[in-house]
């Protein structure tokens, strides 16, 4: 054993460069892997974790303001809740901040803690006086409201001003950019002045000792209904709903992260395997000598495995804690992006898992070639002096020769594939690296695309929201009187009841050239007249209808004969949600008092959007909310972009290290061949060209495989995202990559690979022929 240790450590000292390459690669990989694992651990069920930490409510029920609050006190016992909070008094409050108007559900609550629905203060403090308010962080982020901002309350006659003093994370409500009205909090003494008579209601938070099922929640709701006067319950949100909505936005991110982590680990394993094989091959003759002096096969294996394990273990011991620390800011922004409160989490178990995983992969990668080393027959090894070499890549050389490529290039191509297993492992790393970059690029763009799509970016310049107090005719006149106004599409919300669908279906009614809004159809066509309707995939599925089918809907009791002419690509309705889109004329008959809630204005080209928005807003400051069309909360998107591109970048880096390593191993093993070629008149430049070709070729091949693979993988992930909304992805949505980009990605890859290969190439070009050839 002593001999094994001595030999292993002496070898390590001698093969310092190899040890460094192993160390750096492992450090990168273990780091990436740990970051990925940490993210997975956190994103796998971040909602549940936060829900437990903040003692989230399983059920939040709104009761009519006329209910006796004393009667509500008995409700938790009636449904067997283990804890409860409330009744809180609450009201819908409209306020204005920085020219924009918002509506939030304002709740009277004196402290953020308690047994149920704890609020995490992420900025500022809890309100302490009656002119202070706390907002949810996702709302504040989305609408760019900061601590210290002053909000003008519009929903009560006596205008009052509230100062934002706190930003909190509330686990029991939906994130602002996902939808739903957001919560705000004031102290109880401030509440009375913020509500009008009859506009306030009570909110109760219930929590159970174990997570109830959907049916149990329904039963609890029924019990509650029975215990209060009829129609007293005005609304409810279950944790299941909140969780489902939350998961839509995280699922895709989690999926991508898991995929990326697996990629990173696979790329690492491939490169480590290459490294070990390289060491074994370069030590081929030594193995023979070792065996001749009495090392057993097991001891030979031991020497090689140790040589790899020492640098990898060192890298892991440094890399894993470092990565855990480094992943914290990422986790923090990820939490923020997910609308959760961030708590630094250092899981020793996770670290140990990463360490064990890294060592296991490395040991397996090291064992395979080491076993080969252990089995070698000493006489053969000593006699041959160098490892046997393959002849593969012959067809490639032939092909290249026929193409009349320069000889150094042809030889480089042969070198690249001379060791098929090494070439394949390198290729694997390259393919993973490039594919990850493609997917990361694609996904980040897709998220932006979806937001742009939902916001009609590029089709609509300005969105005008109208207060019911302002007449449609006046608004239309005002908008049309602006010289820049090009096209106006008015939009109204309605609910249509359809047979087979339990809840009323959200319906968007358009007046004007609605086709110009750019809604994408996955099949069929856009509606072109009365009675025609487009629906989302979820609706068709649940109503068992197909394009071309007719059905009867009802609105305000009036029957409406509708024919489905197309399927629209839609995210707004969410998973299992339904949406219909139709023309104004179709609905106007059944709903006489149909009025638009917003107007989507497209300006004539070359118009100044800001000036337009300012002028229009000034025309009706209280009754119109005029905003330039925007993509909403893009902070969330940039976090995703950073995470995805960051990991992709790391994997790409590992791939580059892989190419460098392979080229280094190849040139070292082929030192004698290079020296021979130099005696035959190969110039230093030709040597560098030869080596660079071997690296560049692997990158090119990898790129040619990885780009289509990456695009395909991206599509699969995108399809999953679409499927969450019950959609099939319209083909045009796949085109987030420009052709030149898909060409440029492998070209850049090849360029980087060539640059990396040039370093060992230069070493090879400097080969001292005399030393190499006469050292035999």
């Amino acid at each position, binding site marked *: 054993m002593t001999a094994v240790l001595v030999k292993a450590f002496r070898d390590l000292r001698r093969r310092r460069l190899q040890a460094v390459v192993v160390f750096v690669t492992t450090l990168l990989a273990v780091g990436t892997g740990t970051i990925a694992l940490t993210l997975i651990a956190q994103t796998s069920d971040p909602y549940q974790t936060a829900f437990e930490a903040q003692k989230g409510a399983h059920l939040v029920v709104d009761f009519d303001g006329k209910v006796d609050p004393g009667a509500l006190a008995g409700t938790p016992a009636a449904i067997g809740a283990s804890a409860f909070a409330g009744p809180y008094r609450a009201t819908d409050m409209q306020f204005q901040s920085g020219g924009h108007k918002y509506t939030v559900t304002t709740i009277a609550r004196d402290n953020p803690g308690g047994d149920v629905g704890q609020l995490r203060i992420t900025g500022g403090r809890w309100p302490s006086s009656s002119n202070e308010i706390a907002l949810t962080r996702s709302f504040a982020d989305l609408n760019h409201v900061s601590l210290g901002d002053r909000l003008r309350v519009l929903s009560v006659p006596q205008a009052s001003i509230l100062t934002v003093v706190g930003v909190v994370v509330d686990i029991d409500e939906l994130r602002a950019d996902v939808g739903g009205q957001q919560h705000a909090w004031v102290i109880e003494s401030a509440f009375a002045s913020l509500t009008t008579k009859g506009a306030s209601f009570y909110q109760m938070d219930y929590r159970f000792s174990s997570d109830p099922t959907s049916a149990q929640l329904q039963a609890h709701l029924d019990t509650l209904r029975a215990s209060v006067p009829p129609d007293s319950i005005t609304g409810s949100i279950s944790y299941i709903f909140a969780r489902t909505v939350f998961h839509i936005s995280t699922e895709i991110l989690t999926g991508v992260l898991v995929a990326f982590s697996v990629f990173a680990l696979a790329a690492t394993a491939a490169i480590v395997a290459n490294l070990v094989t390289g060491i074994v091959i370069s030590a081929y003759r030594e193995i023979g000598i070792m065996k001749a002096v009495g090392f057993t096969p097991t001891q030979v294996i031991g020497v090689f495995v140790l040589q790899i394990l020492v640098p990898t273990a060192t890298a892991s011991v440094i890399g894993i804690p470092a990565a855990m620390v480094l992943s914290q800011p990422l986790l923090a922004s990820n939490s923020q992006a997910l609308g959760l409160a961030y708590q630094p989490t250092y899981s020793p178990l996770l670290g140990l898992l990463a360490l064990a995983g890294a060592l296991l992969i490395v040991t397996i990668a090291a064992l395979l070639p080491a076993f080969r080393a252990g089995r070698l027959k000493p006489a053969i090894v000593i006699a041959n002096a160098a490892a*046997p*070499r*393959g*002849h593969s*890549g*012959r067809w490639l*050389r032939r092909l290249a020769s026929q193409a*009349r490529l*320069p*000889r*150094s290039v*042809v*030889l480089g191509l*042969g*070198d690249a594939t*001379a060791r098929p297993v090494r070439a394949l492992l390198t290729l694997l790393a390259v393919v993973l690296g490039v594919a990850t970059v493609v997917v990361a690029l694609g996904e980040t763009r897709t998220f932006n695309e979806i937001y742009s799509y939902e916001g009609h970016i590029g089709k609509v310049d300005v969105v005008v929201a109208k207060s019911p107090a302002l007449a449609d005719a006046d608004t239309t006149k005002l908008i049309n009187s602006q010289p820049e106004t090009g096209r106006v599409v008015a939009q109204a919300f309605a609910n249509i009841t359809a047979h087979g669908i339990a809840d009323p279906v959200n319906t968007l009614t358009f007046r004007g050239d609605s086709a110009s809004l750019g809604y994408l159809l996955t099949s069929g066509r856009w509606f072109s007249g009365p009675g025609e309707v487009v629906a989302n995939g979820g609706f068709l599925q649940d109503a068992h209808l197909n394009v071309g089918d007719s059905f009867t809907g009802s609105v305000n009791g009036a029957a409406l004969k509708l024919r489905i002419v197309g399927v629209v690509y839609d995210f707004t309705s969410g998973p299992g949600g339904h949406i219909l889109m139709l023309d104004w004329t179709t609905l106007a008959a059944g709903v006489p008092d149909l009025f638009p809630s917003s107007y989507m204005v497209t300006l004539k080209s070359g118009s100044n959007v800001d000036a337009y928005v300012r002028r229009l807003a000034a025309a009706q400051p209280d009754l119109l909310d005029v905003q330039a069309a925007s993509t909403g909360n893009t902070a969330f998107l940039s976090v995703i972009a950073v995470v995805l591109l960051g990991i992709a970048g790391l994997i790409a880096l590992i791939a580059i290290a892989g190419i460098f390593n392979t080229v280094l191993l190849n040139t070292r093993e082929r030192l*004698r*061949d290079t*020296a*021979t*070629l*130099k*005696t*035959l*008149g*190969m*110039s*230093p*430049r*030709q040597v560098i060209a030869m080596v660079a070709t071997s690296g560049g070729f692997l990158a090119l091949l990898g790129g040619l495989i990885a780009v289509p693979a990456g695009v395909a993988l991206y599509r699969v992930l995108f399809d999953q995202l679409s499927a969450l909304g019950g959609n099939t992805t319209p083909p045009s949505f796949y085109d987030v990559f420009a052709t030149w980009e898909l060409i440029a990605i492998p070209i850049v890859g090849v360029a980087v690979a060539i640059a990396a290969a040039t370093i060992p190439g230069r070493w090879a*070009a400097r080969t001292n*022929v*005399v*030393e190499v*050839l*006469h050292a*035999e």
Partner: protein
Amino acid sequence: MSELVRLTEVTKVYQGGITGALNGVSVAVEKGEFAAIMGPSGSGKSTMLNLVAGLDRPSSGTVTVGGTDLGKLGEAGLARFRRDHIGFVFQFFYLLPNLTALENILIPAQLKGNVVPGRARELLEQLAIKEVADRYPALLSGGQQQRVAIARALINNPTLLLADEPTGALDTHTGDQVMELLGELHRHGQTILLVTHDAKLATRHAARVISVMDGKIVDDARLESPDRTASEVIRVRGEEVSR
């Protein structure tokens, strides 16, 4: 006959473990000569060959080949020089293991950008190794490998063929055949510089034997080649006849 190679006051100092230093060597080789550089291992004979091939640079002194002062050429220039003027044959053949015999032979031409499969086939035929053209070196006998190496050295019609112990890794019979081949090439006008420690081989075809010892030329013998009768060369003699 014109002068092809000239070493003037060449010294070569090595640091470290490499033997074969040269100490003030001056010598010239004529075009068309078959000269042997002979000496024990470490005497500097291979160093001389490497300097002539431009594989190494002298510590001082000049090496001129075909009128070109090799000291004036850069790395790329030396590579081009080797490509155009030098054919090199080694003791251990040094064929590229992942190329076939024919591909090996073609390399020097291809490095020049020439495509000369015809010439390669001609050489294969001349060296009687036509049947191994598409085989890989590992499948060839030592003699075949060396023939391939010689063909490779000849593909660019080098001005100078350098052979460093070309029979060192071959059995006597095969070695004789390889030497016969070199003699044949010489008879066709090829200038050859042969490095060997074997006097039998050196004198076989070379009419000139340059003896090197401890980095110096200790003898430069030009041998005659008259057709001598056996009795002029060998005398077998028993004991005197007793009466």
